[in-house]
């Protein structure tokens, strides 16, 4: 039963965060809008990964393979921006 409870709390948290980010988007915060939305999204994504996908209980090896692609992804983004931002 305990497992179900965790899932339900995570689910509830995700719903609340969705509502928050949805409502905040109607308030004009200038650049901060994007920042808030992405921070909330990342928080939600971490919840999904840690609890629903059980990353919390996984070995270091799995963690490695979960994080490594993100490193590579940031590489391609920053490398390309180093061109397009300053062209």
């Amino acid at each position, binding site marked *: 039963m305990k497992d179900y409870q965790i899932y339900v709390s995570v689910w509830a948290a995700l719903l609340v965060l969705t509502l928050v980010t949805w409502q905040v988007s109607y308030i004009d915060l200038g650049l901060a809008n994007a920042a808030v939305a992405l921070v909330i999204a990342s928080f939600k994504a971490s919840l999904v990964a840690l609890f629903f996908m059980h990353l919390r209980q996984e070995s270091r*090896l799995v963690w490695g393979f979960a994080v*490594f*692609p993100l490193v*590579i992804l940031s*590489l*391609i983004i920053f*490398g*390309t921006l*180093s*061109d*397009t*931002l*300053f*062209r």
Partner: protein
Amino acid sequence: MSEEKAAQSGPGRGYLEEKGWRSWAYTLDHKRIGVMYLFTTLFFFLLGGVFGMLIRLELLTPGPTFFSDQTYNEMFTMHGSMMIFLFIIPGIPSGLGNFLIPLMIGARDVAFPRLNLASYWLFIMGIIVILFSLAHPMDTGWTFYTPYSAKTAASVTVLSFGIFLVGMSSILTGLNFIVTIHQLRATGMSWLRMPLFIWSMYATSIIQVVATPVIGMTFILLAMERLFGIGLFDPDKGGDPLLFQHFFWFYSHPVVYVMILPAMGAISEIIPTFSRKPIFGYKAIAYSSIAIALAGFLVWGHHMFVAGMSVYADVIFSILTFSVAIPTGVKVFNWIATLYKGSISLDSPMLYALTFIFLFIVGGLTGPFLGSLATDVHLTDTYFVVAHFHYTMMGGTVMGLFAGLHYWFPKLTGRMLDERPAKTAWAIIVVGFNITFFTMFITGMQGMPRRFAEYPEKYQAGNVISSIGAAILAFGILVMFYNYVRCMFRGAPAPADPWRGKTLEWTVPSPPPTENFETIPTVTGWPYSYGGKGDGDA
């Protein structure tokens, strides 16, 4: 089959025992799948070689002689894309890698045998789709740059789909190998007791898994551009044509290490065996494989120096490019140090391995000229580049593959190669190769641009020399293949360990039985103990 029995009744048939096409098409045996990959990819090597020869034929004369300009464009595109996507990328990893990885780590098969077979058939499906694109042959060069590739009448969309499938196959193979190496090593085989070939295959697989999806998306976007005009690469619609190049090279630079790392792995096995010395600097070679794989992701911009990138990006990528030279140099020095004072025997695998080192040094040392901004502006898109990458890819990877094929031929087929034709072929290939491609450094420096069917008269001498060299090279390759085919059926039966190698694949009969090992071996030391100093763990 036990070894005595094999000795009595000629070569045992091992995993080759079962006959009929079904036993191949549905096989889950990593060895058979590896062999199927080898046949498929070598077929495309020969076919791509034919196109290479036709290119050289046309370039005998300055004007258009045998083919129209359009046909020439199609031919070098065929040549380049077949060699890259259908031969060299899948060749060593999926071919030799499949055959050797489980044998070398003491496993009965890869982690996911069914996935392994699926990725072979995905590869074949991709090839079939690519064949359909021949209705309107590609004329973009193997790099498919937009905006031209978005406009040409050639079947870019079909081809994109085909290459996407081939890429998926490559991803699944890489994934399979990573899990295999992590999970299925025999008892006692710690990371630092793994053969160096395994290290390099591990690094290769990592690149395959993280770089290939990017090219997959590139081809999806290219196809969508043609189908719906999404405009992401089209300046008229606010898109950015250079973005395509970023996408393309983010995959295609790391992938040159998919080509070269497995060859380096093969060389790291062959050099100690034929020097009868423990490999020098085991750890350095092992870790440099990983370092190369990682550094390979940092330098893709060096293909875009003259494309109009920002100056910042130019400088950053130029500096970073030099960082890959370090781990590569580490490997070369360690191989040479292994040779030092070894008791070297010049059997055919060793000849090819030494050739690899030599030609790869030439290819490698010409790289920095292209990585430095100032010289690259002069040399880019000339035959200097063509020479550079043929020295690394053909002089490097292909020689590494040949070395590997000669070395593991007895294990693959259960028969020995004839040494005499092997060495003759080797000599012809080395001479032909250098005549063909060294000349290109010079014509390139004189300014001859690549990818043109026609050229000014002043370059003719160089081109004729190159073409003659190419004919010699092709002849050598034919001799070598003749030797392969003949010895596959006629060769003398091979003992389990003809070269006195120390890795696990030599402990089982040649060819190995279906499940590889009767009992899974227990590993107690590293695989390069040839007595004397340096024995034991690294």
